């Protein structure tokens, strides 16, 4: 029967959907190889690949809208033995965000990196893109491990790109932390494989949720797997007590790299955490305690990260700590989702996207300011910001989304979360969400305030190309306009395979 079904759907599903999905993985990979082979035109190649990537995502989206969520067995080998590709609304959104932010960062990088530095940047960036695309299309936990590792290694390499002292030690710390996280995740994978004999998420989910599986799930191996995978992914996501590696790494990397790291890389591990938590670990995490713990971490992250951001004297560190705070919002899904499924789910998905756009815009702005004035000391920004109006505008618009002021993507996300917490009577979460917004306003305006203060001392400045300014601005505008696009985005999010998201009641 199953084979018959597969044969029936095969000819109709394969040609286009799979073409796009496979292109998404292969295209950047080919790009990497070409960049190594032809370093002279790596810039063109990188730009081209990013562009083609956007088109492929668009194609995939089109197909998914036509045919609903999609599953593809690579090389014709399906689960449990082979590797499956899977795309639903969430992964499509992540892919689209990656593609758009990636394109903007590529455009930015063409102007940011001098040819010599660019030769190293482009292949690694495309490698990162490959990892991200594959990660979002993957459906099995081991494959996720491989992509996660590939992602971390390329991210670390990018962080170290400038070769400065801070960058290198930041990268080193980042690398060690993320290796530790990967290994603990891998150990979790091993334990799960041992218990269930599969690494495919949907199969694992079925097994865990089957009524007969109550005994099977209640083994130390599964508990340990949850602990190991959860902790590993949280370390990679840099949730509150484990965020120590993030500010130095994000603060010292080149601007486009910081943008990539903050906007996309940490989201990837969070994506995996989300997927696992609400599918195969769902029977285990039903208890309030564990979700409350994650929610508590999220709340602490919001408050702590914001306070730290306010205390910073350097712009990039400020933005990095703001990322720490914003990750906290994402973790609010854990206490909220069990009862307020779709609201919390929608809210967090929206926050992921809008944060990606806004935070990348912010880092790009920081890059512009750094390039223009040669420093990113906040107290001396008055000499800089005035003379880069586009950048200042971009920073302010991105700030609007981060603060969650309407009409922006950030507002929609926070509104949905607020609604979810209120419906559930979680006033503590309401308070934290709102206070986080207020604190965000404090650190955002700490920077914006300088926009209007004419400097007493001006210093010589380096030109910042229009491309760098506009890519930041467009990202920021995107973050704000996202506030008006909630209906299409949320309807996209609801495309899913019943088995995958059954836990959140979509």
């Amino acid at each position: 029967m199953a084979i018959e079904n597969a044969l029936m759907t095969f000819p109709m599903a394969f040609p286009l959907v799979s073409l796009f999905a496979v292109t998404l993985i292969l295209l950047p990979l080919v790009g990497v190889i070409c960049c190594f082979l032809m370093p002279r035109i790596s810039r063109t190649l990188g730009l081209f690949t990013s562009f083609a990537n956007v088109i492929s995502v668009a194609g995939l989206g089109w197909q998914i809208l036509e045919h609903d969520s999609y599953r593809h067995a690579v090389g014709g080998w399906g689960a449990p033995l082979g590797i499956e590709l899977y795309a639903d609304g969430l992964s499509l959104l992540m892919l689209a965000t990656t593609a758009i932010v990636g394109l903007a960062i590529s455009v930015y990088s063409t102007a940011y990196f001098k040819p010599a530095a660019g030769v190293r940047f482009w292949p690694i960036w495309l490698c990162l893109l490959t990892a991200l695309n594959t990660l979002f299309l993957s459906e099995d936990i081991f494959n996720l491990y491989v992509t996660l590792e590939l992602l971390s290694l390329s991210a670390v390499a990018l962080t170290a790109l400038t070769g400065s002292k801070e960058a290198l030690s930041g990268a080193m710390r980042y690398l060690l932390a993320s290796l530790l996280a990967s290994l603990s995740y891998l150990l979790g994978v091993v334990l799960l494989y041992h218990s269930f004999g599969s690494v495919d998420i949907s199969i694992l989910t079925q097994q865990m949720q089957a009524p007969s599986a109550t005994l099977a799930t209640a083994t130390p191996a599964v508990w340990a797997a949850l602990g190991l995978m959860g902790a590993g992914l949280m370390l990679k996501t840099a949730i509150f007590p484990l965020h120590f590696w993030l500010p130095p790494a994000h603060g010292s990397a080149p601007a486009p790299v910081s943008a990539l790291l903050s906007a996309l890389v940490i989201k990837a591990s969070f994506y995996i955490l989300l997927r696992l938590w609400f599918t195969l670990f769902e029977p285990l995490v039903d208890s309030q305690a564990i979700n409350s713990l994650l929610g508590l971490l999220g709340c602490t992250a919001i408050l702590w990260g914001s306070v730290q951001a306010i205390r910073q004297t350097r712009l990039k560190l400020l933005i990095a700590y703001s990322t720490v705070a914003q990750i906290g919002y994402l973790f609010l899904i854990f206490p909220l989702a069990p009862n307020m499924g779709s609201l919390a789910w929608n809210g967090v998905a929206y926050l992921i996207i809008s944060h990606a756009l806004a935070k990348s815009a912010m880092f790009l702005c920081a890059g512009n300011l750094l390039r223009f004035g040669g420093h990113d000391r906040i107290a001396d920004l008055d000499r800089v910001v005035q003379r880069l109006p586009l950048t200042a505008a971009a920073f302010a618009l991105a700030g609007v989304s981060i603060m969650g002021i309407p009409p922006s993507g950030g507002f929609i996300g926070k509104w949905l979360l607020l609604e979810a917490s209120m419906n559930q009577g979680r006033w503590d979460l309401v308070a934290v969400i709102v206070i986080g917004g207020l604190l965000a306003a404090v650190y955002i305006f700490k920077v914006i305030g300088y926009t209007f203060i004419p400097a007493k001392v001006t210093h010589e400045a380096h030109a910042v190309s229009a491309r760098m300014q506009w890519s930041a601005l467009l990202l920021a505008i995107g973050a704000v306009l996202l506030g008006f696009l909630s209906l299409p985005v949320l309807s996209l999010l609801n495309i899913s395979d019943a088995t995958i998201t059954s836990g959140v009641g979509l």
Partner: protein
Amino acid sequence: MNIEFYTTTLWIAVIWPLLLSIPAVHKRLPWPRYLAIIPAVLLTVSPIDASINIPWLLYGTGFAIDGNVRWILGAFVVIWLTTVSITLPSNEKSPFSSTLYLLTLTGSLGALLTTDLVGFFSSTTLMGYSFYGLLNQNADKTQQRAARLYLYFLITADLALFEALLLVAFTTQYFQFEVARQAMSEISSSSVYLYMVLLGFMLKAGIWPFYIWLTATFNSGTRVIALLLIASPITISLLGLLRWLPLRDDIYITGLVMQLLGASAILHSVLKIFTRLIFKQALFKHGMVYFTTAWLLIAFTGLFSLVLGTALLNPALWQQYVYLVYPFIAITSITLTILILVTGKNHRKPESTDDVFVLINKLFHKLKKWHQTTQQLASQLQLTVKSLWNNSGSFVSRQYQQVLNDKNNKSFLTSWKLNITLFLILGLALTWLAI
């Protein structure tokens, strides 16, 4: 000369001085102060009663002239012309002074001719404040003080009248004098209205015991001011009293009080004048004329109050003889005018000591000082709190610095060992909670 001509003249009489009051206009015209009053003169000399309704203005106001008003208007015009003719040429040339002068005229004429409460109130406001401006023209210290005293009384009076007006609006939708008075005398709770009206107009007209501002202004001002005082605030306020006051049977106690006040006023003035006469023997020496006239004026308003008290005691009788009151006001004010004119030429201002005024001033300064002290205290407190926090040696900031000093990623909180241990604990915690 048909009736329409007079109707038109009615509102022109009010608008015309207002138009002339604009400096750009009256600077270009000869004798603007004479010109301004021409329509009013026309209205006075013509025997025809006229009225006009202006429904779109305010709450539907209107202007009207009848025999009663003509008496007052006549007196008003006479005094006004006199004033203009004795005004010094130097003053005549000051455009600013002319503006105030003409605004006072506009307000007075508006109040005289209007047919409703709101129009009357608006006009008297304009008149009152412009007159305050006139008092301040080229004023020395004493005059300014007197002017300010007048202002205090004016504001208080206006407030009282505003309350009265609110009560009218609460009772009826119509503000024509007759209708409103009728309505107010029919409802049971009109005593508040009555008190407010009495208070307001007694303040405005300087009726005893509220005469302080009147003597102060009168004594310190020039002849022109004295004449204007009679023409504008006092006459018109008395007219207002006639128009606003409701008449009812059950308020005779108020009537008695009014009579008492009137009698005291007359007694007081007579005593004042006679003591001066006896002790100083200087009734007609310079300076004293003014003094006497002022007290005559108070006696006159006192008489009015006596009459009004009678009216309150016996409304029927009052209705019968009310028409006599208008010529009475007109003739008395003209008499006073002549008195001032004849005797006040060599007038020298006496020293005035307004105890009330000094008291108010003192109070104000005390308030100011108190405010400054509180502000100083507040800023001191703020400073103390700030220094507690900012002081680098303080315990709070030292701890804060130690824990959070992560400038070079060297703080305890960001150390590798601590964080990886936390990672371990988190993993264990998750596992434990999953069980």
